């Protein structure tokens, strides 16, 4: 069976691979037999290899070097290019983070290939599905040159175990001088959150301008915590200083696709929809019955968020006991 390279995205906080990696392994199986590629500091592969095998990695290429994390993106693209040249895989699948997309782009130039970003599905013939224009248009696209490279949007594929051998193979890492041009001198975590990662969460509760203040975002956080959800925010809420930018959902923020999205005090502007439209169930709380968010909502409450949301939080907590 054809080999498909899958770049492993790590979860430094929790250890192990990120869920996006398991999704990529699952999606890659439509095209052939996945080989996971672990690029990181020495010792990285040991912590992720079992999970990779469980989700279908027949092989695990281990490219470890103390240096790879010191530079931005370019070394990882070099390792992948080297593997593409040696193994002639049928395709390469990469989780669609900012870094993943940049690696895909560089790999495309290096290997003379085409690449498709933010795909939500890959068919056995290589045709990918992409969501364009704020979710209004569904596109089928194909790579027509070289080794197809895909970046897979988070939460679009459900990870399914398919135990495989996970045979380790060491890859020599040689980083060129050119790939050392951009140095990462520090990695700073500003918000340590005990809540689930926004793009991975199965429930997201987002607040908008209607929340009215930073303090009042505790109403949103309360509901989120009662549901074990991640917190998001509209751009108006972010621009008003109610909540940090890294939680912005929408065209210029995160794209989320949870099982349940609850929009509170958010009007539903097209740029906000761009980031949440593909959520499975959408619930809205807004005092304006004409708010466009209701056009999307499976269930909407027309009312003041300051009364509806705290009461709902209380009832949910009571039920969950």
């Amino acid at each position: 069976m054809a080999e498909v390279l899958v770049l492993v995205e790590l979860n430094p906080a929790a250890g192990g691979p990120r869920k996006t990696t398991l999704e990529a392994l699952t999606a890659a199986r439509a095209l052939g037999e996945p080989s996971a590629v672990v690029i990181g500091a020495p010792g990285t592969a040991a912590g992720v290899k079992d999970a990779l095998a469980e989700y279908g990695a027949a092989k695990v290429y281990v490219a470890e070097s103390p240096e790879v994390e010191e530079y931005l993106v370019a070394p990882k693209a070099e390792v992948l290019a080297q593997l593409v040249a040696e193994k002639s895989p049928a395709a390469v699948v990469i989780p669609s983070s900012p870094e993943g997309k940049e690696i895909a782009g560089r790999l495309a130039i290096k290997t003379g290939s085409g690449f498709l970003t933010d795909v939500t599905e890959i068919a056995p013939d290589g045709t990918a599905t992409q969501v364009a224009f704020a979710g209004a248009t569904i596109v089928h696209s194909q790579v027509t040159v070289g080794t197809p490279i895909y970046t897979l949007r988070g939460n679009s594929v459900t990870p399914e175990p398919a135990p495989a051998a996970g045979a380790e193979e060491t890859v020599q890492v040689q980083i060129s001088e050119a790939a050392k041009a951009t140095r990462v001198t520090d990695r700073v975590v500003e918000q340590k959150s005990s809540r689930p990662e926004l793009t991975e969460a199965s429930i997201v509760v987002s607040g908008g301008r209607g929340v009215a203040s930073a303090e009042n975002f505790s109403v949103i956080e309360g509901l989120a915590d009662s549901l074990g959800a991640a917190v998001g925010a509209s751009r108006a809420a972010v621009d008003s200083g109610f909540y940090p930018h890294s939680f912005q959902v929408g065209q210029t923020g995160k794209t989320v696709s949870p099982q349940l999205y609850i929009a509170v005090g958010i009007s539903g502007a097209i740029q906000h929809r761009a980031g949440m439209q593909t959520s499975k169930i959408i619930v809205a709380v807004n005092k304006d019955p004409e708010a466009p968010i209701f056009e999307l909502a499976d269930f909407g409450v027309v009312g003041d968020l300051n009364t509806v949301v705290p009461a709902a939080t209380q009832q949910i907590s009571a039920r969950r006991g």
Partner: protein
Amino acid sequence: MNIVVLVKQVPDSGSERKLDPADNTVARATADNVINEMDEYAIEEALTVKEAQGGEVTVLTVGPATATDAIRKALSMGADKAVHVLDDAIHGSCAVQTSAVIAAALGQLEYDLVLCGAEATDAQLSVMPALLAERLGLPQLSGARKLTVENGMAKIERQTDGGYWEIEAPLPAIVSTWDTINEPRYPSFKGIMAAKKKPVQTLTLADLGIDRATVGLATATSKVVDFAGRPPKGEGVKVPDEGDGAEKLVGFLAAQKIV
């Protein structure tokens, strides 16, 4: 400090956007076109650096004839001159091909810094800095929420999930900017008038020494095979809060087996 800012004209993200069924490319001719909003932050950052350190800001656009409006906007904000790569053979180009055109155009310019927006709102690929860095052997400093240029080095804070990375590289380098980096200025009346007299150089593929057969729809490295509107969602339920809004909401979540 000579700076080139890459600017793209895109269909307004707030208006209805479409693909053209004739060849499955973005329907640009009939769209409500605007300058890519993210690029305004790159222009602002370029002007800020220029105001502090001197030099010239050049706008570079690859786009159809309508893209002159985006160029005017950039010039009216304060950029000094512009280069517009205009050639119908470019139509239908994928990101890989477009990056080849931009790289060739950059080859004809002198710069210490290339700035661009962190994404174009039409295709949302966020890859141009990576593609250009790879082609030109330039350092890539992408996704900046803060930029410092001093002593021949560019340093940025690269915005990440829940924080940032500090990254640095020697000049010349390519930097992309998010909307968290600054507050773009509005063009002044004087700026709008002055923009009309600023030089705009138009280049074709021949001027750049690019073979027409290597760009455009026929040889794109990827293609859109078909598209469809997203199926509309079924009618949802909308209830007024008559003191029982929370109860109804929780009832819905319970019916969905969420609580």
